[in-house]
């Protein structure tokens, strides 16, 4: 696969992912992830260094199977978690997309992200921002996310951080 094709695979998948979250199509969003997908949001060791080893350091979120994400969707849908009643309205943006490596069945890429979110109860709005590092793989179900590492720069401003805000 050439560079332009790889860019287009990554761009298409990441834009679709944001769109599915903004549309609250959770099944569609989960389907983008491989069953053994790694979903990782490191925490911060100090002012400028993120944690690097999930087995010896704290992460904000660390799942090594899609089931971790499925549980988060379950919590959101349970209508028993006050955090999601009501859910914030979100708009996801990505930009500065770069392909780091690619072959016929795998694309490694990184990009910057912003998520703007608005809380209807309080009319508060906030922004999460940072960058993603992703590995995308071609499976029988098409291109899927094999791993997504989310570097959240402003980790300590909101009372909640979850996948739909990242």
């Amino acid at each position: 696969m050439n560079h332009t094709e790889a860019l287009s695979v990554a761009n298409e998948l990441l834009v679709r992912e944001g769109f599915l979250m903004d549309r609250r199509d959770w099944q569609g969003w989960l389907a983008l992830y491989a069953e053994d997908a790694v979903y990782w949001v490191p925490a911060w060791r100090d002012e400028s260094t993120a944690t690097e080893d999930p087995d010896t350091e704290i992460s904000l979120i660390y799942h090594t199977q899609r089931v971790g994400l499925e549980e988060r969707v379950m919590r959101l849908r349970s209508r028993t978690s006050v955090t999601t009643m009501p859910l914030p309205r979100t708009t996801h943006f990505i930009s500065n997309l770069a392909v780091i490596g690619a072959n016929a069945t795998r694309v490694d890429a990184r990009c910057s992200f912003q998520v703007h979110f608005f809380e209807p109860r309080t009319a508060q709005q906030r922004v999460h921002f940072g960058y993603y590092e992703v590995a995308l793989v071609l499976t029988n179900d098409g291109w899927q996310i094999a791993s997504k590492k989310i570097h959240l720069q402003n980790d300590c401003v909101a009372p909640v951080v979850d996948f739909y805000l990242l």
Partner: protein
Amino acid sequence: MNQPLSLHPRDLIDDRPADGIFGVRHEAFLDQGIFELEMTRIFESTWVYVGLESELPKPHDYITAQMGRVPVIISRDADGQLRGLLNSCRHRGTLLCPLKKGHQRVHVCRYHGWTYDSAGRNVGITGKESAQYAPAFLADDHDLVAIAKLESYRGFIFASLSPNVPTLAEHLGDAAMFLDLVADQGPEGLEFVPGTVSYEFDANWKFQFENGLDYYHFFPTHASFVQILRQRPPAEVPPDMASDLQDPDPEAAASFSFPYGHAVTWSVGLGGQGPDRRPLPRDATRLAALREKHGDERVKWMLRQRNLTIFPNLQIVDIQSLQLRHWQPLAVDKTRMYSHCLAPIGEAAAARAFRIRQYEEFFNHSGLATSDDNVMYAFCQAGYPAAAGRMNSQGYARGLGPAEDRRYCGDELKLTNVRWTYGNREYGDETCFHAGHREWLRLMTRED
């Protein structure tokens, strides 16, 4: 800011347990004047938790913290002695250390270059010879101002900006036993797992103080978390995990309250928090060594679910993982939390990884439970004005009535100066909040 105090703290607490009544008026959580007074009379006048000794193990290591509105440095000097210093240059009051932690033989103020050693002594005034200083200046002390009191108990560092406090030992009283139950888990000491999780919630700090002791909220507030636990396949238990972990006592939820505002709630057999979900037994060798050293009874207490509050700003929660959290009130309706995963130094790798996953899942604001607490505090902050002007005695009432089949259990830990309650697992004690509010009132109305 300087609005006159419209309310007197003594009118905000109704403390009549003999009549079965304890109440707090909602203005204690809402009023700007009360908040200002809390900063002055509580956070800037009594013992507050400021850090863990293992955060600054070597000479010249330091951490920074906030005591009320006052920024401070906790530094280990060249001799290894802990020093508590105001984080403010003597020259123009500039914040001296802008970082959370570090290692510095000398601290140089970035504004005009005044320099201090790690004991806080002034070791350099830029251009002193050319300064045309008056003798009065030269005779003056230019060292960093020391915090009035700084003491450490089992590695937990506390400080007070006012000298008018009891010793730390008297302040902690028998609540120290519950710090022991944590400290004893790490024969080589305790450490924070790298990665502080910090977040803010839009509500008064006292909601966190109360909620950290509140078992009654667990199933309603965390229903979605409990639901997730229930649908999971049973947790894999390592084959070498000791088979004698079952608590010998009946299922219970109970509390101890101490002088100076501290309290602990504890339970046996509360859902989803059994020994198979705790990190401590995952390191079988160390657990056996703890039994050897401290005896089965103490280990039984280590394995019990315990929520400890050291008034006014520290909670240590030993449930599915071990958390230390403390807080900094930012405004009457805004609080910043600092959360750490606490672990024994030298723990086996598999037990450590298990501890971390268990911690993230429950205690992170990006986990499956804590954000529900944070949002609930904001709901309380939003709901409280509705009942302002009346005493709320409905939310402090569980446990004030007569009870049968109570078991003291405090003799097992040699507790002497303690109030206690005991009930079944649905009991949900609320008298454990009283001690903190009593101490709040004592400090708020103290004549200095």
